[in-house]
């Protein structure tokens, strides 16, 4: 157990040193899975890091390492940040889950925030966003706007998060347009702009005039613009460059408020380990401006839906809902529990195709 002793020794020494030198500066570390210039997932997390700096100014110091591979590399980077005296570390990818727990065990005084996972510890919180709430709004617009009644959906990797999004969008499209049909293409990658472009083109060629995407590049929007009469949505960031074209709205990852709140909690000494799963209401999921390409009445409905979800008055997964095989899932008025939603691995009734696994 020499290693642990050494580590604790170092931590103690550092703890003492840091209290002496910089009592007031809180150090916040970020481990990013992609480059901060990816224009999507990591870009938005980095924006939130900058929001912390802006909020707290001199009282905070942030550090980050980008493009950290999941697995041992991430564990090393987290350890390194903890050794260097970080008070709070955000680990922003699902694959960092076990490394985060491992490192947290060695540094009980450092607080960890792990995105999109399910394992917690006294000094590890989890947080994630209810993107499916935004998908409901998109689905509503898609169902209203499609003329061919074919909506194309570009899936990244078939995990619960993505499947939840498909279901939510489908339910709300179907509600306003019983004839709607979803065509789903899996690119099996989180990031491959060329493949996303191909996928979008294929969907458009097969008749889709609305494209929903769960991948982060603007390639599908560009394909939609080229096709002319096709609309799409921004994903992860607003993708405002396509506002005068196919982009009619967007889902924006807005981590800033949460990051600021958690940093403040560490400063105040009120930080506790809690699993957070926030949606439109607390502002973790932002709905980008709905453009004029959407008729005013549809826009009003979409905004009403957004408000209802935000206030908690309406839940996107409210029964009656059946699973794809026709078996009952939710009874009339029943609301899905978070456990089922978190591990969702089935399509709802009406979606065609099978989930790859």
């Amino acid at each position: 157990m020499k290693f642990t002793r050494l580590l604790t020794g170092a931590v103690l020494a550092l703890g003492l040193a840091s209290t002496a030198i910089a009592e007031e500066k809180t150090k916040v570390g970020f481990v990013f899975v992609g480059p901060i210039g990816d224009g999507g997932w990591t870009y938005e997390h980095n924006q939130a890091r900058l929001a912390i700096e802006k909020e707290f100014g001199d009282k905070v110091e942030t550090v980050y390492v980008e493009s950290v591979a999941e697995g041992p590399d991430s564990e090393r980077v987290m350890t390194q940040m903890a050794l260097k005296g970080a008070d709070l570390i955000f680990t922003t990818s699902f694959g960092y889950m076990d490394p985060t727990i491992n490192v947290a065990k060695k540094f009980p005084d450092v607080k960890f925030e792990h995105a999109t996972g399910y394992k917690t510890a006294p000094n590890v919180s989890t947080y994630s966003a209810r993107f499916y709430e935004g998908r409901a709004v998109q689905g509503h617009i898609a169902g209203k706007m499609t003329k061919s009644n074919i909506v194309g959906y570009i899936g990244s990797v078939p995990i619960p998060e993505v499947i939840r999004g498909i279901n939510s969008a489908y339910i709300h499209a179907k509600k306003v347009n019983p004839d709607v049909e979803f065509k789903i293409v899996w690119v099996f990658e989180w990031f491959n702009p060329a493949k996303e472009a191909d996928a979008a083109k294929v969907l458009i060629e097969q008749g889709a005039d609305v494209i929903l995407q769960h991948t982060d590049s603007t390639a599908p929007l560009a394909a939609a613009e080229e096709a002319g009469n096709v609309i799409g949505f921004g994903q992860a960031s607003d993708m405002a460059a396509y506002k005068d074209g196919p982009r009619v709205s967007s889902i924006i990852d807005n981590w800033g408020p949460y990051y600021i709140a958690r940093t403040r909690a560490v400063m105040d000494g009120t930080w506790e380990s809690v699993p957070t799963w926030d949606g439109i209401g607390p502002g973790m999921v932002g709905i980008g401006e709905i453009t004029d390409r959407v008729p005013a009445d549809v826009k009003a409905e979409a905004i009403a839906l957004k408000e209802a979800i935000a206030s908690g008055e309406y839940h996107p997964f409210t029964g009656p809902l059946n699973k794809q095989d026709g078996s009952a899932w939710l009874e009339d008025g029943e609301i899905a529990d978070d456990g089922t939603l978190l591990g969702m691995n089935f399509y709802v009734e009406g979606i065609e195709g099978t989930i790859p696994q």
Partner: protein
Amino acid sequence: MDLSSINPILLLASLMVAATPILLAALGELVVERAGVLNLGVEGMMITGAICGFAIAVETGSPVVGFIGAALGGALLSLLFAGLTQFALANQVASGLALTLFGLGLSALLGQSYVGVKPPPTAKLDIPLLGDIPVLGPIVFAHDWMVYFGLALTLVVWALLKFTRAGLILRAVGENHDAAHALGYKVVRVRVLAILFGGACAGMGGAYLSLVRVPQWTEGMTAGAGWIALALVVFASWKAGRVLLGAYLFGGVTVLQLNLQAAGVDIPVEYLSMSPYLITILVLVILSADRSRAPGSLGRVFHASS
């Protein structure tokens, strides 16, 4: 399952677009390898071309200037490789891989302020009338001009290698550099020029991604296209015509598997996603009966002792 929703005409048209970046890069690498040099840095040169082309197109507002800039950028980067392998006589495999690493880093640094920017559109070669011909129109006459440039380049490379004196010298250098040297050909000069050409082509291939096919700039956006281009050269047994065939085959299977997915075909998606690679291997095995081999001096270091 609804196979009727797949439109073969549109499929053909979009595979031509999907194949263009790897076609351009592979043609360049073909010339490099025919000169006896193995440059594994295609990915690095492509991504450098992607950002150079993107940045210049955005700044000047002209995609054409962008593509020229991409070619220059790719060539400039390949100059590093040329210096290493032709003058410092470094190992080509390792130098190429180092070039990829270097190019990925360089492009990311250069592109920091271009994230989220939209490039100027590349003009379609919309020939009136011709583009409206049923079937043939959308396949043959309704693309952006780079698609035609790729096709023309295939023809030029093929003719150059086969019929011209320059092509003959290039091949001689690639087959046996000692003999070529003895005959008085400037081995190093020929190879440096070939490497520069390869860099320029890879750069344009990359720019096609960032300016036309995607179009946006993000770090690492080539996502392995350079490696596919390298594989294509081998696939083509170092023949220009077969590079085209290979690029269309690969692009075609990629687009087709997405089409099959969208049509709801009952094949597990994982296997569909593997199909472009498996089919490439399969076709190469079938073609292996034709025993064309690599240029004799491929990858070997040349030093004129006299």
